């Protein structure tokens, strides 16, 4: 599945989560240090949250 992290395309395997998308984008360390992850409607997401095709998430 293809998702977007801070507008960057990341390819994930089935069952992979927000955490995996951040690993792919090289942003997991920032999230572990306290930055938060949001969906495109501004809702905060947990790192183990499921993603679906085309999801856009943002690390802030």
């Amino acid at each position, binding site marked *: *599945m*293809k998702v977007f992290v801070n507008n960057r395309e*990341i*390819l*994930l*395997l*089935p*069952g*992979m989560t*927000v955490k*995996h*998308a951040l*690993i*792919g984008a*090289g942003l*997991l360390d920032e*999230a*572990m*240090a*306290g*930055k938060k992850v949001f*969906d495109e*409607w501004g*809702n*905060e*997401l*947990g*790192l*183990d*949250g*499921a*993603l*679906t*095709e085309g*999801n856009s998430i943002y690390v802030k």
Partner: protein
Amino acid sequence: MLRIKKVFIALVVCISLSILAVSPAHGQFKELRILHLNDFHGFAAGKRLIGSDEMQGGIACLAWLADNLRKEKPTLLLAAGDMIQGNPFANLFQGKPVIEIMNKMGFDAMCVGNHEFDFGKDVLRERITEATFPVLGANVKGMPGLKPYIIKEPGGLKVAVIGVVTEDTPFATHPANVEGLTFLSPAATVEEYVRKLRDSVDIIIVLSHLGYNNDMLLASRVKGIDIIVGGHSHTRTLKHMLIGNTVIVQAWEYGMVLGVLDVVVQSGKIVEVKSRLEEIKPSQMKKREDIAQIVEQYGRQVDALMGRIIGKALVDLDGENVRTRETNLGDLITDIMRQQSNSQIALTNGGGIRASIGKGNITLNDIYTALPFDNYIVAMKLTGREIKEVLEHGVSGVGLKEGRFLQVSGLSFTYDPKMPQGLRVMDVSVGGAKMDIDATYTVCTNDFLAAGGDGYRTFREAMKESQDFSITANTIKSDKITYNDSGRPLKDVVMDYIREKKRITATVEGRIKEVSCNEGVCKQPGNPSAPRYDR
């Protein structure tokens, strides 16, 4: 004519009255409170917030709050899936403590999440039998005990609750866990039940383990859903979303918040909505003592189990040098991974192994210390060329003791750390034969590397370049993936292996050899010279 008119009017009034008699709560304002929880994953004692020392959650505090909120108005307490699997409190007892707690709390219903299937169908059936509340899964066919929906009547309001789970479930757990089950389209399933139930109830709630985006799609596709209480995407909806007339909520994860949705219903329509997430702050809240006792009782059992001897190491198992050379613990772990996923090759990053296991008794604690991460095994088909690329990346940071150094099984290779990056790996053999750069091999690794962790891009790129790569219903359709069990951490696989074998020994087999090459002749310290292999 006048008499006919009067008879007609009388008939209309009679029919209307009879409709009102069977249609509940018609015309009256009725209040309903929905308390909701999702993706609890067995975090009964709470969880430390990321990037902070503060603890949040704790089911005993959440239960105390739920009891108080229930006293205020007619209430349903609902769980939107992924409740019974996730951390040692749940996993070591295959979810039993969570059901025990949910029974005590008086849940009205729960829908299954994909992780409810991670212990297999037989265990799930046991948990469903133990539950004193209905467990819902309208789009799962073949699972005994699951109900498609329930009808509850809090405060005289007739409420249908339909449960659905992601149809991706079979792709994220071991195939054996869902063998014989069919996961139907959630939208088509909900549409069918809404059609069936709409006229006989006041409101319809979908208890969904589909994820927030899919909940929105469901609401836009299926008319007649009043509320979707969701889970799966671990979304912290500070305020409800409204799609058409459908209210959508979700309560983050791990019981760190309790979702509170208050609605007023009139004539089968929601006329007022208020939603909030109540934070569960153990330092500022009371506990429900009976729940706290269950948490403590199982917590003591977890501690005892963690210290229980599960096997014996006949030699020291080296987890210290995993970032610079092959070790016997690295060999053991990758052998187990290869066996579990029935792959030809196993590759794992040394950085994922964090401690040695000393000669002598092995406890669960030893395994959890050596493998502290919740990594799981994934396997896919890679060409010899792609495998070579992965191995090159593995030795590219060896001088800096970086975690990307690989421990391997099913293959052997030599490398010269003095050569330029990308040209260091030589003599790659798979199963004892020279690796064919154009042939395809099944390779397992962990999810961290497969996602691109430690700078490994090859696994993801291989998926992308696959000729048969396609996406249908949010799922990758590809014969590239041969194993993908996100519900079973690698440490649990290793734990089960040691439990079964009891006596564990492993030696460094010479799978990875560091050499120094000069003018085509490569020497290993202390070994005779060997001819150089073409790259």
